[in-house]
């Protein structure tokens, strides 16, 4: 039955087609990161394994210092593991960075103050050597996608924190990556703005078939956005529990009042309490 094309189309909305499930977008195997410290060796990450399939939305959640940023940086080839292997799109993380196959959103917007919002979004397109008119068109589209079409000519200091963070998301989207790595992108925002951006993000993820790895400290945010939640604990940094999140792909904010949502939230909360108890 899975061989019939009809069944395959139906499959997409619910689970992964088989072939894509086998070829993980990101696979992290027995990875450890350690730094020399005064008391010997500090284990930022220890024996971490994680496979992320296409169109998944993974949230990393856990106490401060448990290695969430470190893990994201390993996948992005901004840091190297002490042991273990990391594969992205079937190749090494170095190759993936070389192919510009991911977009990275940092904890701070990291906009260039001498560039307008539009020019900031065009930065990666300049680096890859796109023609000027194509650059402008793509950057404008990316700004529209985050709802900032009318702020294109403003400088970063003329934008609110939430708008700046949206520009940085547009910048990551402008390269049209299939994989998005996001490090607490909404950490510094108020609840309402955060809700709005969460909705934006979940729409983008669904409409563009993105694969997202997302770091957050907020349980409702993680449950609302994710297909899977990875709870981590510190000292040494490791994965303590992985919680599946069977909510439908199309989500609106009222989903947060459903019993399913609350049940998953409780699971995550319990996992985190255990992680904090270890401190």
């Amino acid at each position, binding site marked *: 039955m899975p061989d019939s094309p009809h069944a395959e189309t139906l499959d997409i909305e619910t689970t992964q087609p088989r072939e894509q499930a086998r070829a993980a977008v990101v696979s992290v195997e027995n990875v450890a990161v350690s730094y020399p410290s005064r008391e010997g060796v500090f284990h930022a990450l220890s024996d971490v394994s994680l496979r992320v399939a296409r169109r998944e939305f993974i949230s990393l959640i856990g106490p401060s210092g448990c290695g969430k940023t470190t893990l994201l940086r390993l996948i992005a080839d901004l840091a190297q593991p002490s042991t273990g292997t990391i594969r992205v799109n079937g190749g090494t993380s170095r190759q993936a960075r070389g192919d510009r196959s991911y977009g990275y959103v940092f904890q701070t917007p*990291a906009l*260039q103050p001498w560039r307008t919002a539009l020019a900031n979004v065009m930065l990666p397109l300049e*680096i890859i050597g796109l023609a000027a008119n194509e650059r402008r068109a793509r950057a404008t589209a990316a700004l529209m996608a985050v709802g900032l079409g009318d702020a294109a000519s403003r400088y970063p200091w003329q934008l609110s924190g939430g708008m700046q963070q949206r520009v940085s998301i547009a910048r990551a989207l402008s390269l049209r990556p299939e994989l998005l790595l996001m490090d607490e992108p909404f950490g510094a925002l108020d609840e309402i703005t955060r809700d709005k951006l969460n909705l934006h993000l979940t729409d983008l993820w669904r409409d563009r078939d993105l694969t997202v790895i997302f770091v957050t400290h907020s349980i409702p945010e993680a449950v609302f956005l994710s297909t899977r939640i990875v709870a981590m604990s510190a000292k040494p940094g490791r994965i303590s529990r992985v919680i599946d999140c069977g909510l439908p792909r199309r989500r609106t904010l009222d989903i947060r009042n459903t019993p399913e949502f609350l049940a998953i939230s409780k699971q995550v909360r319990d996992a985190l309490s255990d992680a904090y108890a270890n401190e």
Partner: protein
Amino acid sequence: MSEAIAGIGVFRTARAGVPQWSRRILAPVVILCALLAIWSIAATLVNPSPAAAAAGIWPSNWWNPRPTLPSPPQIAVATWTGLFGYPVTSPRSLIYHAAVTLEAALAGFGLAAVLGTALATAIVHVRLLDRGLLPWVIVSQSIPVLATAPMVVVAMGYMGFSGLLPKAVISASLAFFPVTIGMCKGLRSPQTVQLDLLRTYNASGRQVFWALRWPSAIPYLLPALKIAMALAITGAIVGELPTGAQAGLGARLLIASYNGLMLLMWATLIVASLTAGLAVGALALLERALPRFRLPA
């Protein structure tokens, strides 16, 4: 109602403006007046007063034709005459000499800007140069120009260069320093996250330089250029001292000191600082035109 509010707004900004204005203008003016007063008293006490006293001019020693310490009005008159009393092509015109010096200073400034930037770029990109070159750049500034200037002039004279070029080189040897130091700091100013961002785009070293390091360094470059401009003019003047040059503010100073012409010396000094002030002011205007590149306050 709305008019009343608007009125209050005007009133308040006006009131807020006065102390601001007075602090910026009044304080320097008061200091200047005090200095001039002390100077005038000193000029009265120090200068001999032969002929003028007999003629009944008061205060007699303010107008001594060969003063030890010229009085402020006497310097003002001499400066004015030096600037506007002769056609600008005349060797007695201070404008003529200022132009000769400024030409060399601008050439030296240009040289220094290019050399300083190139050095800083090399130092920032090659770790070995950071250890190997930067200490020498700093040591170079502890050698007095007065000692090196004649050597440069003589050496370049052997190679067949004279006139503008040796002066520009001496001028640049002073002016490149603030540019190098400022650019080193500026090129290193981008935050780690900014560098990481470009790394995620797999940007080359050259791309990182033009897209991030260079624009980040502009706010450091502009103040460095202002200091460099002032030093370039000093350097050009010093460069004119050993050449036996006929033209330039330095040559004028040398003639004045050989002949004990204190008045000419003071007038030349004032023209030198006016020239430096104008050149630095022009750069400040340029800085204003690039507000986006100013350092965050």
